[in-house]
């Protein structure tokens, strides 16, 4: 419990430890700590900048996407309109074509009918002449012949 020479010994020991710490422990430790602090600060700043850039990029990409969507919608609409036009056009063409064909056929029918009628008439006329010749060759029965002729003429006229 008494104060003795140990006191002086302890003071010297203490000083030695303090000087050792001051020379060899404190400077490298604080240096490392400062350096890490600096790095962390830089890292945080980088992260902030990265975040900002990401945000900008997101905005830009959204804009591009919106534009693309608009464009696509426009394209589809154009295509639809065009297709509609095409369909209408082809329908129109088909209608015209069919009308033309119909008309052509009708004309042909008319021509053919008149031709048939013409040939029939000629045939009937021939038959009539032949029948008349035969009648004239055999006997002239005014009464019976005239009845036949009348009938023939009536038949031809009814056609």
């Amino acid at each position, binding site marked *: 419990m008494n*104060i003795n020479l140990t006191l002086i010994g302890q003071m010297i020991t203490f000083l030695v*430890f303090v000087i050792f710490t*001051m020379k060899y422990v404190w400077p490298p*430790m604080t240096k490392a700590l400062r350096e890490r602090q600096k790095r962390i600060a830089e890292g945080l700043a980088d992260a902030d900048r990265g975040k900002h850039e990401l945000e900008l990029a997101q905005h830009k990409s959204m804009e591009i996407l919106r534009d693309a969507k608009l464009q696509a919608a426009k394209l589809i609409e154009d295509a639809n309109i065009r297709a509609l036009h095409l369909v209408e056009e082809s329908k129109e063409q088909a209608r015209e074509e069919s009308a033309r064909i119909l008309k052509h056929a009708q004309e042909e029918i008319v021509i053919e009918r008149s031709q048939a009628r013409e040939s029939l008439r000629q045939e009937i006329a021939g038959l009539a002449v032949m029948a008349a010749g035969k009648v004239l060759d055999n006997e002239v029965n005014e009464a019976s012949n005239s009845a036949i002729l009348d009938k023939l003429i009536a038949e031809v006229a009814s056609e």
Partner: protein
Amino acid sequence: MSSGKRDTTLYIQHHLTNLSWHPAGSSSFWSLNVDTLFFSSILGVLFCALFYFVARKATAETPGALQNLVEVLVDFVDKQVKDTYHGRSKLIAPLALTIFVWVFLMNFMDLIPVDLFPTLAGYLGLNDLRIVPTTDLNLTFGLSLTVFALILYYNIKIKGPWGYVKELLLHPFGVWFIPINLILGLVHELAKPVSLALRLFGNLYAGELIFILIAALVPWGAQWLLGAPWAIFHILIITLQAFIFMMLTVVYLSMAHEAH
């Protein structure tokens, strides 16, 4: 029963006696407390070696567990010092770190069972052994007087010898009360090392004494009932005392840097 009482007294006395070495034929002042010197030096060397080992390889990369521990301590002390002291001395922060860790380690010896080392020393033929250096007034005064010397050094360095003397003579009551000012100033200054040393000593001495009393008076089967709570509480005390010693040292030294 009387012999039992004497045994207890002897046991306690035995635990409170330093292992000391006397040069033959000299007064007791010239003796050395070998145990105090030995354990404080071992712990100090342990502290220095550990921190040097870490500091030598310290990098700004991701720290390992050991570097992390050291960094926490360094950072903690650095923050405390920066909060209190605004000068540019390269000494104060390392001084504070040394005090904090070293005093903590020495206080920590208090948590080692009181009989372990004395019994081991008994086998080696050593009669007395005290393993907690901070329960020796020589150590606590050794620390506080060194700090006191630094206080004087900085007072004189910053304010100049004449400025320091003037501060002692003229504060706090002005030029007409020089004797009173001087007495107050001297008491004020001397109270710093005395209170530093006695506070640390008192806390640790009392703590150790309670461990010894528990060991001496309580039946062995029940000792943990008192010993365990006291040890757990003591963890707080030893840390707190190390912190207080460090903090007050920083405060005193920063006061020495500032003129009134």
